Each structure stands twice: as structure tokens, then as C-alpha cells.
């Protein structure tokens, strides 16, 4: 919301008055107001702001990777292999003389790719199964929820291991395996929300007006589930990153020469005692990013979900 920087103080004051007026004129106006108020609450939370800063930097680094580096992280300089961090190679080089700094920068893209893809897969699956189970109820609810329980019962990494071993290693299969093991809590969440709003009066009103079940679920129930699902997703992002890195570390995620951070740690392991930077620096990257998502998720929960406002 820094759009007021280029405008005159007068119009910035008018913008603020527009954002804070107590009688919104349109749906758009109301949405802007809610966003602004949410942002005001969010921006006073320093921990959440640090998280946001980390994530924004990650996105920027990924977007401008070609500008930040000279190659794409896969060029080998065999004469400089395993050289320590220096002016030429800020983070040192790995066993094939590849610049670790470049690989970290390009690895940001892979991390975002994994996280984004898992999010895109998981949220719709969870929402559909959860809202339908909650709204329809009865045996449909029973069948869908027992199915969800099966996935909930297994530890995530081990189930993902089993999936990847069946599907074969690779980044797409790792994403698929993580998504298959991640969607179940979203279905539970969406179901719980649906049940709590299913019998409210505005749903009755919509039904009296002749809205079909499908329309009620997608027009009136699902939008209300979105905010809790998104908070959960932000909190889960760190877990997704760690699982993906774990799969990469075991050699089941992204395959060489892709600069995936977990896989980089795995190769660096052989040189751990003599060339510590090969394994440790990618780990710091994973740690910082997953910390960022955790901080952001914590802050978002405080802002978007007033029920659990006792957080800080």
C-alpha cells in the first residue's frame, strides 16, 4: 500500500479517508478497506514483517536470477573446484567447480516452483472434498472423511517416500507426492468451516431463492473457507519446503544438475569435514526461507483469524 508515495499529501489524505470511511459504496470499496485494515494490523507485527520481507526477497531473487548471476548455476570451472568462499566465489564452489552463490540464486526458482505447485494442487483438492463432505453430510461425508483419515494417519515424509519410490525420482513426482500427503488437513479444515456455516441464515436465504447445492458451495461457502485455508497453507509452506528438501537430500527430488538446495546438501555431505561450505550454505538458505514462511504464517494467523488472537 505504498501507492501514496507519488501523490500529493492532499490526495493521500483523501485516499486514507476513502479507505477508512464507514459506509463503503461498492464491493470493491469494501474489499479495499478490509485489505487496508488487515495490512495496518499486520504491519505493526514486527515478526510477521520480517517473514514477509524474507519471502518478498525470495521472490525477487528468483525473478531477477539472470541479473544477479552470470550463468545459470550449472557451469563447471573444474580448475576452481571446492574452493573456499572468496571475492570471486562468494559462497565457494562445489565438487564440479560450480559457483554455490549462483546455484543458491537459481535454486530459489526451484523452491518457489515446488511450493507454488504444491499449493495450487492442494488447496482445490482440500476445498472440494471438505466443502462437499461438510455440506452434503451423511454417507458422502463418511466416505470422504475416512478416505481423508487414511492420508492423515501416515507420517508425511514416509508416505512421500513410498509415493516417490513408486513414481520414480524427479521434481514433478516429488511435488505430486508432497501434494498427495499434504491435502488431507485442508479437507478437514474446510469441512469444519462448512459445518459451522451450513445452517446459518444467509445460506437458508440462498437456498430459498432456489440456489443449487453446487452454487451454494462455490458461491457462498468456499469463499469463507479460503482465509483459514490460506493461513494453514502459509504455515504449511515451511513443512513443504523441508519435505521437498528432505526428498532432494535423499536423492529422490530434483535430479542433478538442477541446483535444488536439498540435493546440494546431499552432495556436500561427502566433503563436509574439509570443505564445510558445500553442505552448510544451501542449508542456511532452506532455513531462512522456511523461517520466513513460518513467521509470515504466524503473523497472518493473528491478522486474519481473530479467534486465535492470543498469539503474541
Amino acid at each position, binding site marked *: 500500500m505504498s501507492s501514496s508515495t507519488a501523490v500529493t499529501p492532499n490526495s493521500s489524505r483523501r485516499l486514507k479517508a476513502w479507505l477508512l470511511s464507514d459506509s463503503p459504496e461498492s464491493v470493491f470499496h469494501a474489499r479495499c478497506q478490509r485489505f487496508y485494515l488487515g495490512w495496518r494490523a499486520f504491519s505493526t507485527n514486527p515478526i510477521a514483517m520480517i517473514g514477509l520481507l524474507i519471502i518478498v526477497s525470495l521472490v525477487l531473487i528468483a525473478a531477477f536470477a539472470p541479473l544477479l548471476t552470470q550463468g545459470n548455476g550449472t557451469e563447471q570451472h573444474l580448475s576452481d573446484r571446492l574452493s573456499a568462499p572468496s571475492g570471486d566465489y562468494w559462497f565457494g564452489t562445489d565438487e564440479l567447480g560450480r559457483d554455490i552463490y549462483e546455484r543458491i540464486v537459481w535454486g530459489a526458482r526451484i523452491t518457489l516452483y515446488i511450493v507454488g505447485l504444491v499449493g495450487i494442487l492442494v488447496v482445490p483438492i482440500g476445498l472440494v472434498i471438505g466443502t462437499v463432505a461438510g455440506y452434503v453430510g451423511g454417507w458422502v461425508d463418511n466416505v470422504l472423511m475416512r478416505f481423508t483419515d487414511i492420508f492423515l494417519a*501416515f507420517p508425511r515424509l514416509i508416505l512421500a517416500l513410498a509415493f516417490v*519410490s513408486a513414481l520414480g525420482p524427479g521434481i514433478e513426482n516429488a511435488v505430486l507426492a508432497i501434494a498427495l500427503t499434504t491435502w488431507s488437513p485442508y479437507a478437514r479444515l474446510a469441512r469444519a468451516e462448512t459445518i459451522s456455516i451450513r445452517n446459518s441464515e444467509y445460506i437458508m436465504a440462498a437456498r430459498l431463492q432456489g440456489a443449487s447445492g453446487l452454487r451454494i458451495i462455490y458461491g457462498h461457502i468456499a469463499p469463507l473457507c479460503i482465509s483459514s485455508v490460506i493461513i494453514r497453507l502459509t504455515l504449511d509452506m515451511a513443512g513443504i519446503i523441508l519435505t521437498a528438501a528432505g526428498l532432494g537430500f535423499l536423492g529422490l527430488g530434483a535430479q542433478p544438475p538442477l541446483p535444488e538446495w536439498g540435493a546440494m546438501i546431499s552432495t556436500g555431505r561427502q566433503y563436509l569435514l574439509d570443505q564445510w561450505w558445500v553442505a552448510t550454505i544451501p542449508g542456511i538458505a532452506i532455513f531462512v526461507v522456511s523461517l520466513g514462511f513460518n513467521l509470515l504464517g504466524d503473523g497472518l494467523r493473528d491478522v486474519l483469524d481473530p479467534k486465535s488472537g492470543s498469539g503474541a
Partner: protein
Amino acid sequence: MPADPVLAIVGDRAPKEVYEAMYIKLGLDKPLIQQYLIYLLNVLQGDFGKSIMTTRPVLDDIIRFFPATFELASVATIAGIFIGVPMGVVAAVRQGQLIDHIVRVVGLIGYSVPIFWLGLVSLLIFYGWLGWLPGPGRIEVYYDGIVDPTTGFILIDSAMQKEWEIFRNALSHIVLPASMLTTFALAYIARMTRSFMLDQLNQEYVITARVKGLSELAVIWRHAFRNVLIQLITIIGLTYASLLEGSVLTETVFAWPGIGQYITNSLFNADMNAVIGGTVVVGICFVGINMISDALYRIVDPRAR
């Protein structure tokens, strides 16, 4: 990673007849549904098939590898409880103060750090640089096999047989891997203890206790904490179960001969019976631990009956 189980057994130079004989022997010519049903039937009878890698029944392997994982997870959970619970209580009592923020940040770090990386870094520092602790493995090679595996827990077996040298050695080996798992357990336990404690401290009976003039220590530990204790049972159960998962990566890093390493090693040898058997057993433990903690909860908390 070879994906063909037949190739994994006969090797890729085997003549066609040998390959086909093995293909039929493994039952791979039958329809998938039939193969699946046969497998299910066998599992129900406790038969997970044979491991290609060790040529022993998978169940025997699992029984042999499981105690190492269980020992590791137990040490980590116990340490997590003894550090995490007081941290959570103190954070709740001093809500919003410096110590609360420290606990929160420690918790977030515990959640965010990749456990396998932390393991490598701690190996680098405490084994490589400082030399305070031994390297990977469960025990020094020359002590291997001296203690009879009565329970399978080296710490308990060596203590029972009064082999204190071996006990000390095993203890020094378990410190690092257990600390890795403790980091996670600690974060979770401290966080949940804090939020349960906050719930209790805002209740009216706490005010009554204070009005009666009880000391702050008595209010916190004898009244509020006792109610938290019941809720903590579930949390500790969940921690235990999730440590089984965390052990896959930790065991790989520390060459810990447990179930996690067994599963990953089998995975790379296309030893599918072992992978699926291991996964199913861990899943059963996961569900079992959760059921036990649910049952305990009902026993301890009269309201939940």
C-alpha cells in the same frame, strides 16, 4: 534407482529365461488386483514377503532395526519433555515479556530448520572441529556384538549387563542424533504447553486460588499445570509419532541402523517388499501411538469419558 524388482534380483546381465522365471516366481504375471489381494492376505498373516537386500523376511528385519529407532525417539521425546514443558510454562506465565518472545523464536527455529542439515552441521562442529563427540553410528565398531540384545536397546542392555564402558560409548553416540530430534520435539511441546497454560491461567479457578492467598508457584504448578498435564498426553503421543518420521533423515545422516535407514536403503535397491513393509509398520505405529494417547486421555480426564 532401479525400478524393476526382477532386475534388482537377477541383475541386468541375466539371460531371458532366468528373468522370466523370476518374473513368474514373484507373481508379477498375475493381474494387479490379484497381486494386491495376495499381498494384503499375506500381510494380515504377518508376512511382508522377503527382502531382496538381506534375503530375510521383512518382518524379521523390521524387528531387528526397530529398537534403534525406538531408542532414539524415546531419548529425544524425554529430553523434549524435560526442556519443552518448563519452557512453555514459563513463557505462558511471563506472557508478552522477553522470555516469552525467546521461547517463541526458539520454537519457530525448531520448526524451520532442516533436520538433516542441522545434523550435518553439528557433526561438523562437535565431531569434526571440536572432537567432543563421536561420529556417525550407534556404537564404536569394536564394541559391536559384545552386548546380548535382550531388549534391543543398547543403553538398557549394556546397563543391565553392567558393561559401563559400552554404555558410555553408546550414550556419547546417541547425544547428537537425539539432539536433532529433540530440537523438533522441544519446539512443538513448548508451543503447545504455552497455549494450554494460557487457557488455564485465564480461568476463574486460578483467580480463586490467588485470592485464597496461595503462592504463585502453587497456583501455577499445583493448579493450572495439573490440568495442562492431561492435554499434554496427546501432544507427547503426537511428538513420539512424528519423531518416527523425523528419524528417516536423522538416521541417514548419522548412519543410525534403524527403521528409517532401512526404508531408504531398501528404496535405493528397489527392494519394494522392504519399503512397503517398513512404511506400513511405521504407519501402524503412528496410528497405534495416537490411539494409545487417546485412550490414556480418556482414562486420565474424567470429563472425556
